[in-house]
């Protein structure tokens, strides 16, 4: 689905990423985990082709139109309503809006579609942003710490909804986060980036019992994954 070879990125003298290769199979939910400043957002921008690598290349298995991006901020346009914001990608692509009602229903915003962003809570803004990303029916979805600014209850709620959406739609998701439990909860596979951007220091496949919500979060297997990833993160930090 997505293949990246020997990606490097530097800004002048400063190297942000060095020689990163990865391959992401179709339908997977992959998390990129790493400390702040390790270049995970830069890597995501390059993988999504928002940014050019200094060297190396990225290959998609899909057309550019079939990708979408959810940013750290909801990045809604304040002068448009929820519905108009969700329809906006079609405007940019000169296409007729299609499937807007369905996607609004999916994220639970049908009753709020005529509100403006300033009238929404943080969680609802992020839902709008996710609806906007899903409305074009992407096959490849990039998410850059989308829940990091939300309170914990809202974050858990959105994680569960995202998991449910993903398991129905089977889009390929590449998810950047610095929260270990978020990565474990959502992903098939977690990639830990080393602090200086020189590669993926650890990969961990996540296999969990078929549970959701609090039951899963307190399950011993869930905690074992969190503990192992936490160890790996700590060990790379001091190398």
């Amino acid at each position, binding site marked *: 689905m997505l293949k990246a070879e020997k990606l490097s990125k530097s800004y002048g003298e400063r190297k942000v990423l060095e020689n990163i290769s990865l391959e992401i199979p179709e339908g997977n939910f992959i998390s990129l985990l790493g400390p702040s400043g390790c270049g995970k957002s830069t890597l995501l*921008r390059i993988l*999504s082709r*928002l940014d050019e690598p200094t060297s190396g290349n990225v290959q998609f298995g899909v057309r*550019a*139109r079939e*990708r*979408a*991006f959810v*940013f*750290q*901020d909801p*990045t809604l*346009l304040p*002068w448009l309503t929820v519905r108009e914001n969700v329809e906006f*990608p079609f*405007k*940019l*692509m000169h296409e007729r809006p299609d499937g807007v009602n369905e996607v609004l229903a999916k994220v639970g915003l049908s009753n709020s579609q005529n509100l403006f962003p300033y009238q929404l809570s943080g969680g609802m803004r992020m839902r709008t942003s996710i609806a906007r990303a899903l409305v*074009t029916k992407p096959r490849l979805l990039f998410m850059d710490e989308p829940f990091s600014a939300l309170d914990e209850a809202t974050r858990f709620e959105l994680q569960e909804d995202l998991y449910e959406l993903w398991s129905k739609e089977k889009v390929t998701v590449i998810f950047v986060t610095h929260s270990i439990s978020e990565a474990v909860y959502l992903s098939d596979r977690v990639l830990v980036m080393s602090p200086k951007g020189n590669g993926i220091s650890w990969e961990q496949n996540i296999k969990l019992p078929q549970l959701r919500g609090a039951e899963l979060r307190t399950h011993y297997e869930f905690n074992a994954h969190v503990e192992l990833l936490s160890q790996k993160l700590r060990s790379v930090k001091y190398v």
Partner: protein
Amino acid sequence: MFKKPAFRTWAPLLITLFLIAIGLEIASDIGWVNEQLIPSPSATLAAFTELRSDFMAAIYSTAGNAFRGLVLSFIFGTGIAIACSLSNLLRRAVLPLAIFFQTVPIIAIAPLLVIYFGFGDQTVITSAFIVSIFPIIANTLVGLDEVDQSQIDLFRIYGGSDWQILWRLRVPSSYTSVISGIKISIGLALIGTVAGEFVAGSGLGALIDSARTQQRIDIVFAFILVIKIICVLPDI
């Protein structure tokens, strides 16, 4: 978004002005202030009633020319700002010139304008235009620049063109700063207009100039009052 009751907002100011007027009136009555230097409020009012028709015609002409100057500033100011936001080269080439224009006192330029445009409205409007264009350029440019990288990325992801980023993102984002630029420029356009009228001989500027030569302090004060009221009106 919130509408305050007009009375509560304006009452303290009106009471202050009223008290100053009463105090000044009493002070001139008992001879504490020299009426040759500061006329009493009643004398100022009398001057206004005496020359009412002249004043009204002058206000009409001054406000009209200030408005025309402002409209020109808006058209050219936003145009220049949009062009500068599209091209860094243009920004470096044009913006310093605009700042240079801003620092030259209009009183120094006004006599030149008379030589170029003669004694008439053209001189006055040009003077208003020169003084009021800069805040519109500067504020519009700030507004156009004030978009987040992630908002631009959103456009890029869906293949949005530079043109779409300009009209669907930058221009709507700049709305509030354009409005605040216009508010600053209203006052400046009036200053430019009066400065132009001093040399071109029309409107309130000409009226105050002739009052000055006749030592009619009361008319000068009535004039200042009128100008202040015109300046404040758009803010209400």
